[in-house]
């Protein structure tokens, strides 16, 4: 394969760093509202019919949305194998908890409506709540840990990975703050979705809780930034780096005495990301109060885009710093797949992503319109 020489290795790495962000944001912006609706289910919907209204707003789409997570995992495997290997094995029990929660979700959606019994349905409602809450919290906690560095190292002899942290070590104050931010963000997003797609009391309650969540997002995001500036050291690369060099993290040296805010001094344009995080949430709050239903969801997406981009940009070029051995830290320049794999995967993505976006948009268009009590009580039996 000579074709891959068409694009330089370092450019491909940069593109794949951006694509990793696109997939994460894609997941949070689509499946994020499904998780949010799961968390809101017990409080925005009281009666069975109300719950069915809430569930059926996401019924036809959550499955496709969840693929963003699956593809995000697989693309990390393909484009950033060391990142996939270190993070999934290091966060082992946390990943296990996410898996259990994510297993409950599909079966919850599908099986809840199969029986009339109130107890049966109530149990599945809790399953759906856990299926929304646990992943939202843990994803945030994981990001909080990544920002502080994760205790892993590579054995120089054969590049075997050793992780020396514990599950409870993940639950430190800063990580929990990030976990709460993630929960608030996805509740805001789920509420924005319900305001648009649900009707009656469900939409009304979603408006109130969503407004609260948007305020929480602003406060928690600000707190996260303040602590990042005051209490969390960033990482620095201290050796020369070859952006087109082999993907071996141990070829560089790094220290844990920098600042994650340094990038903003060098590249002031990066300030757009945190600004969008705040402004998006504020605008979503405003739109929710003013009942601009479509705009609410859009602003909420903008806020998610800003918040996730802030994390990525603050850490650049680091992807997964190591607190145990800073030299083992994974960066954009030394943790990717080979030149050929990145190129092939880029071609595949450029072919399929537009097709996916096109048919997803078509499906959303077909499903356009509000879900109300009449829809779920329709005797055709198509609703959950």
């Amino acid at each position, binding site marked *: 394969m000579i074709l891959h020489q068409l694009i330089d290795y370092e450019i491909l790495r940069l593109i794949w760093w951006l694509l990793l962000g696109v997939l994460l944001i894609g997941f949070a912006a689509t499946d994020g509202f499904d998780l949010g609706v799961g968390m809101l289910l017990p409080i925005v919907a009281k009666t069975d019919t109300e719950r069915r209204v809430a569930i059926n707003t996401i019924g036809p789409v959550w499955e496709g949305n969840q693929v963003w997570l699956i593809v995000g995992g697989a693309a990390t495997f*393909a484009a950033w194998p060391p990142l*996939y290997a270190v993070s999934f094995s290091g966060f082992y029990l946390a990943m296990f908890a996410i898996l259990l929660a994510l297993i409950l979700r599909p079966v919850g959606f599908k099986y809840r409506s199969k029986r009339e019994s109130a107890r049966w349905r109530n149990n599945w409602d809790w399953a759906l709540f856990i299926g929304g809450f646990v992943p939202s919290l843990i994803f945030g906690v994981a990001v909080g840990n990544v920002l502080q560095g994760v205790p892993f190292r590579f054995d120089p002899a054969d590049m075997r*990975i050793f992780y020396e942290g514990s599950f409870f070590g993940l639950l430190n104050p800063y990580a929990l703050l990030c976990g709460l931010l993630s929960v608030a963000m996805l509740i805001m997003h789920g509420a924005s979705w319900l305001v648009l797609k649900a009707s009656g009391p469900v939409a009304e309650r979603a408006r109130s809780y969503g407004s609260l969540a948007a305020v929480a997002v602003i406060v928690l995001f600000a707190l996260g930034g303040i602590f990042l500036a005051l209490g969390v050291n960033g990482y620095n690369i201290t050796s020369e780096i070859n952006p087109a060099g082999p993907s071996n993290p141990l070829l560089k040296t790094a220290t844990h005495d920098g600042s994650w805010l340094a990038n903003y001094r060098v590249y002031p344009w990066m300030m757009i990301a945190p600004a969008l995080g705040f402004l998006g949430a504020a605008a979503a709050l405003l739109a929710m109060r003013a009942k601009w239903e479509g705009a609410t969801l859009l602003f909420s997406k903008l806020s998610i885009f800003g918040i996730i981009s802030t994390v990525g940009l603050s850490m650049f070029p680091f992807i997964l710093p190591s607190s145990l051995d800073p030299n083992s830290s994974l960066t954009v320049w030394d943790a990717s797949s080979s030149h050929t794999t990145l190129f092939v995967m880029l071609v595949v993505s450029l072919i399929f992503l537009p097709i996916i976006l096109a048919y997803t948009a078509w499906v959303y268009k077909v499903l356009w319109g509000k879900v109300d009590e009449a829809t779920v009580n329709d005797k055709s039996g198509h609703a959950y």
Partner: protein
Amino acid sequence: MELDIVALSRFQFALTALYHFLFVPLTLGLSVLLAIMETVYVMTGRQIWRQMTKFWGILFGINFAIGVATGIVMEFQFGMNWSYYSYYVGDIFGAPLAIEGLMAFFLEATFVGLFFFGWDKLSKVGHLVATWCVALGSNFSALWILVANGWMQNPVGSALNPQTMRMEITSFFDVVFNPVAQAKFVHTVSAGYVCASIFVLGVSAWYMLKGRHLEIAKRSMTVAASFGLASALSVVVLGDESGYLTTENQKMKLAAIEAMWKTEPAPAAFTAFGFPDQQARETHFAIHIPWVMGLIGTRSLTTEIPGIDKLEQQAEIRIRDGIKAYDALMQIRAAPTLDGVAPAVRASFEDLGHQLGYALLLKRYVDDPRQATDAQITQAARDTIPHVPTLFWAFRIMVGLGMFFIVLTATFFWLSARRHLDKYPLLLKIAVFAIPLPWIAIESGWIVAEIGRQPWVIEGVLPTAMAVSSLGASTVLLTICGFAALYTTLIIVEMTLMIRAIQKGPEPDNEPEADLISETLVPAAE
């Protein structure tokens, strides 16, 4: 096997993979059957076919939900439990998984929502397109996961990069058009089609025995029998075994399946029955059929099939070559730049680098393979023999059931052609009791493929024992218990819902008989 991290990780993977694979084959086959039924509906305009599509669609949905949920576990587990594997081969193995997501999962998962929710929102043809997209998506996903698995069985198009200490892709084309992957794809999707056909056949036979939903049952049986017969033939004719001999690496698997302890002069005999004894290296009470093995395995009377004894000797030679490759690799990695490496060392690595994996087999016994004793080398060569009795039996169960499915589907195909589907209650009963059999055959097939590859996770490249994460045994034990508890609950819930849905039967379709014109124009196919 003692309770070490390797054994536990393998157990967890086997548990979750075998469980996931209870749901996948039915999804694969039923999605295509749904698309066929709905196509008949759209072409003839007959409401009964829409009713059938909806009814089998309900069962499809119950099954699909767990298939999706347990599939995420599979994808995450490579990183969680097999982190060295993920590091070492992620450059090659990750790509098909990502393509699977982009090409297959999005298609399948986006349109499955429309399949269930879109009946009133789409035109007839629009809904049919959605159904076909679901079927296409699930079959594409089988293609890419088998490209990934085929590479584990026959790792083409890749080489070790000493600078990154991992396998890197050299030809994406070779990885995709790997003959083992292609054979596996056809074999596996056909098996899924058979599974769904037997399921539809058995459930319909039950309705017929009960005298319920006769019109739907009859039509469903006709579709299932014809589709099932074609698929059952395809499973056997395009069976995996055709792929075994195309590559050097799969010879040990073939020898173990056939319990060929000693190399025989061509053409080799086929052992139809017997009790293989791994310790004594012989098969007790063996019944041999002369010539057959040589014919199946080589399609010739003169080509020799190597037995386990010969392959073990070859493995020992490869281990010794692998040690030289390992030595060269260590010198290359120790040098500050590639140019600083002596040409002789580089030549040695280029010559023998592909045998490096065999040196890694010694890592179980010694940290540095170069320090291995002769006894350890002999032991490592012995390790290349997988567990023969397991393979011998799993293979025979799979093949025996495969033959039975041909007979069963052919019988019902004939009955359906003669309009005699309801004439023989005994045959209907057999069809009902046959429902679980495809799953037994399919799980046996998984065992043959994966146990047959041991001690390798990537044949000839990476031993399974090296591929695990550095986790505590108690941590993995905890997650095994967690998965086992959740999965047991789920299968009980799933089976209950399936049985209730089957007992309830198809919903009466209240819609007025539409498109009377098309019905008069198109003579009824029934």
